[in-house]
């Protein structure tokens, strides 16, 4: 069996105490929320923090407050199951609820938190392997090695953004609160992520993601459509989040983000632009979705071949738009 490396486990009760421990230990320390991402990674020695700071005991990080009319605040430690089972949330933000319900398995959703899902490590067939396996290929750029085996001549890492909640939350224009010993900052998710498999967020060392802020729900509709091999368990190989608002029969606003296919959940802006201000029908949606082919840079580093996944992007964009429209009517 695979075993965890030795580490010191901290259980602070206050956010400030947690921040202090991480500040004291620097890069040796990592926060752990549900542990469903970090602990398997530690067993595979992808991350080996000597200090692990649990957020489970910090009550301030748990729970949902506010209401959809003015926006919701979701504590970072709120479990995915709790979100999935919240009927009011599902009614107001169906796309987000769909995304949460599609994450991994029921057991892992019991443990996993929304904060953890937002900061889910990027994934790759050459990275998510045991240490012995990775040693056999001389490791890779993302961890201990020099080369990106997905694209050996590439100067960057192509590990894949694999969180289901991120594409729809980016489309929704959700925000997060990041806290450090120097204070708090509130940034849109669009500014939290960047297109690199290693440095995939702009979160600074020592910063803690404390809350997710959902926008006020005034006439918006949403959907999330996930492509994966099995009905459960698997990470997305494509995940499309759609957020739209109608003006009569016309689409007034539309935002689409595609995850699971690059290091960031790219916006399908051209597809959205082609539909804004129009009365959508099956043909126009299909035509607009074709433009979603462009922003998807699929590589052969997840389940299924890159060519097929790229081909699927416009189809899933169409279907996700249709699902959101069907909700609206």
């Amino acid at each position, binding site marked *: *069996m*695979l*075993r965890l490396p*030795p580490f010191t486990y901290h259980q602070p009760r206050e956010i400030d105490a947690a921040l202090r421990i991480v500040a004291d230990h620097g890069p040796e320390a990592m926060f752990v929320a549900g542990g469903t991402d970090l602990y398997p990674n530690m067993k595979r020695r992808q991350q080996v923090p000597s200090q692990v700071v649990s957020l489970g005991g910090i009550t301030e990080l748990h729970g949902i407050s506010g209401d959809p009319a003015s926006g919701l605040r979701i504590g970072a430690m709120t479990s995915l199951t709790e979100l999935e089972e919240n009927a009011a949330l599902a009614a107001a933000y169906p796309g987000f609820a769909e995304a949460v319900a599609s994450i991994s*398995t029921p057991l892992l959703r019991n443990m996993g938190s929304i904060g953890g899902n937002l900061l889910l490590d990027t994934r790759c*067939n050459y990275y*998510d*392997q*045991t240490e*012995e*396996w990775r*040693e*056999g*290929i001389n490791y890779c750029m993302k961890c201990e090695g020099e080369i990106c085996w997905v694209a050996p001549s590439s100067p960057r890492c192509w590990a894949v953004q694999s969180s289901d909640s991120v594409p729809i939350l980016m489309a929704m224009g959700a925000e997060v609160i990041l806290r450090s010993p120097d204070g708090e900052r509130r940034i849109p998710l669009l500014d939290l992520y960047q297109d690199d498999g290693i440095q995939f967020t702009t979160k600074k060392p020592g910063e803690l993601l404390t809350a997710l802020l959902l926008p006020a729900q005034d006439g918006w509709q949403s959907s999330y459509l996930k*492509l994966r*091999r*099995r*009905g*459960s*368990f*698997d*990470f997305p190989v494509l995940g499309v989040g759609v957020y739209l608002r109608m003006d009569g029969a016309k689409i007034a606003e539309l935002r689409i983000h595609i995850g699971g296919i690059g290091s960031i959940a790219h916006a399908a802006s051209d597809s959205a632009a082609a539909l804004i201000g129009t009365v959508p029908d099956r043909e126009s949606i299909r035509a607009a979705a074709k433009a979603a082919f462009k922003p998807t840079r699929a590589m052969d580093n997840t*389940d*299924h*071949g890159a*060519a*097929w996944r790229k081909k*699927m992007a416009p*189809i899933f964009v169409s279907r996700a738009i249709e699902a959101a429209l069907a909700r609206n009517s």
Partner: protein
Amino acid sequence: MATAEVDQQKKFKWIGTRPVRPDGLDKVRGRANYGADHALPGMIWGKVLRSPHAHARIVSIDTSKAEAMEGVHAVITAADLPEILSEESKIGEGPTNFRDLSHNVIAREKALYHGHAVAAVAATTSAIAQQALEAIQVEYEVLPHVLEGDDAQAPDAPILHDDLFTKGVEPRPTRPSNVASRTEMGRGDAEAGLAKADHVITRSFRTKAVHQGYIEPHAVVATLGEDGRATVWASSQGHFMIRAYCAKLLGMDQSQIKVIPAEIGGGFGGKTTVYLEPLAIALSGKAGRPVKMVMSREEVFRATGPASATRIELRMGCTKDGKLTGAHARLEYEAGAFPGSPVGAAVMTLFAPYDIDGCLAEGYDIVVNKCKVAAYRAPGAPMAAYAVETVVDELAEKCGIDPIEFRLQNASREGTQSAFGPKFKRIGNIETLEAAKAHPHYSAPLGPNQGRGVASGFWFNGGMQSSATVQVADDGTICVVSGNPDIGGSRASLAMMAAEEFGIDVKLVDPQIADTSVVGFSDLTGGSRVTFATGMAVVDACRDVIRQLRERAASIWGIEVDAVKWSDGAARATNGDAGLEPLSLRDIALKAARTGGPISGRASLTARGVGMAFAVHICDVEVDPETGKVDVVRYTTVQDAGRAIHPSYVEGQMQGGAAQGIGWALNEEYIYDADGKMENPGFLDYRMPVASDLPMIDTVIVEVPNPTHPYGVRGVGEVPIVPPIPAVVNAVHAATGVRITELPLSPPRVLAAMDARRN
């Protein structure tokens, strides 16, 4: 020896009912002791160093640094185990050569696959053992490797074994080859039959290696004392197999090894051989401490035995009114690094559901630089059925005949000459097809993008050796002791047969699985044989006890034993002794001390009269025309169980086999990189179906009792994995018009086939 006959029409009290399973509560509550649960005082941890190359000569192994580490108690290499001569094993499942087995357990001279064990250590903690592995220095001379059966047959292919010459070909080859053997089997004249045909279909099929996917990784605790006696706790499908294999591989006597069976967390054929056990005994001997070894999931995938990857070329023909006239198959099965794929069983079974004028199957066993395959549920048959059952579907379509009707027209039945030797005795092939045809599923309407497929399957029923003892406690309860690990409900079925024999409540029967020193030799749990064969031994042992109970009653009553009969749980005096009140099992047990001592019975036998099994599966799929994704939306399994002792277990076997077969058809595969490294050695990336991927699998048990078993039992556990692959593939054809001849049917492959057809 044959057990006394039974009245097949008799009404039973317990047979066919569904009592609570004897192992259920412990498993549900987490109390069951699996292989990794055992611990001993002073126990240390063993780990295996594995080859990072698919094919390499081991130039040297320097273990000195590892041995010098604090906490390291023993390091072993092949040099610590005796050299084993080439010798075919008589026990176990499938062909096993002891020298090959020894070399698979730990590499000698050459590492033959990525993950092949080259050394092992034992240390006070698993962390130290891991560090010690890293301190072992192995110098390899990397050799060219070959991963695919096609490439392995090329004239310039790297040769795995310099002393391997193809068996079964004339003249005897003078050059070594990766083709270990050729076998053939058939009846009539296949070519003449094909020449008579109006329609001949020729197709070539490919399947990938797939793993059984048992949840419990291989695990063992072993202790070898200074007196040279070993005790082994292990999870396996046969502790007598472990004893025999370890004795042979370590140069010990079988009497020096006691193997205690753990509860088993799934096997499906994959636990019919040894990997860790001989290493754990050798490490324990060197360390002077008990040693525990548990594989990681990655080790299970990389270094145990999956099912063969295969390539099958098939020609089948029929007349225009649908009579199968001829068939010819060439089957190439990858064995992995050592000879011994189940191609022989494939050759025997593939045409069994049909009465064909002339058929011939040639099988080739091919070694490649991948882990050695092992048995997997009906070993070899599902891939062969994929070929035959999809071609039969195509022939039926060509003739314009309903696929079940076509199968009925050509079905093998009692008296049909089988391709593998004997004429079929009483079999339920036709009854099973009729039941499938009559099932409402078969005529239910289909939705858009949906299609329906059917397929038949055949599998044997193992006989082999079994033993049982039956003991009577003085409160009149019964302990039934057997030597077969329970992977499919055998404790329940053995207890129920005993309850039926004695005419007592099944709750009064305690079924136990005993270690190698307690019960007589029993061949392993495999071949769908335990309820059949060990069941016969239990019935015989019960009848031995009943004979003694009648003797005790006769002696208590002072009458002749012939005047005592046993019925409904009591001895009853016959003819004229009407005044004698019946003596129950409990009455007699209480008086045992004064009437001759404890009462127990035993039986050991080689079971004859096996009951072969047929199954028909009906599958509905929906195929997404834009993505190629296949969803199984309805599934029905119909199977002749002979007689279902505990129908819930039989249904569980039928559903489990279907689930595994659907996974094999749609998603599962070993993915290797060019260097021979498995890329998906974990349950996240090796994609077995999960609950969300399967519909409720309906079951229909057909009962055509096996006339030679006291309760009519046939083999049940394996045949349900034979039809699913072709049932799914035929359904995909019905939905899309494409016939896919390579597994798995992943969405990109299905979409590519659909696109090719559309263009």
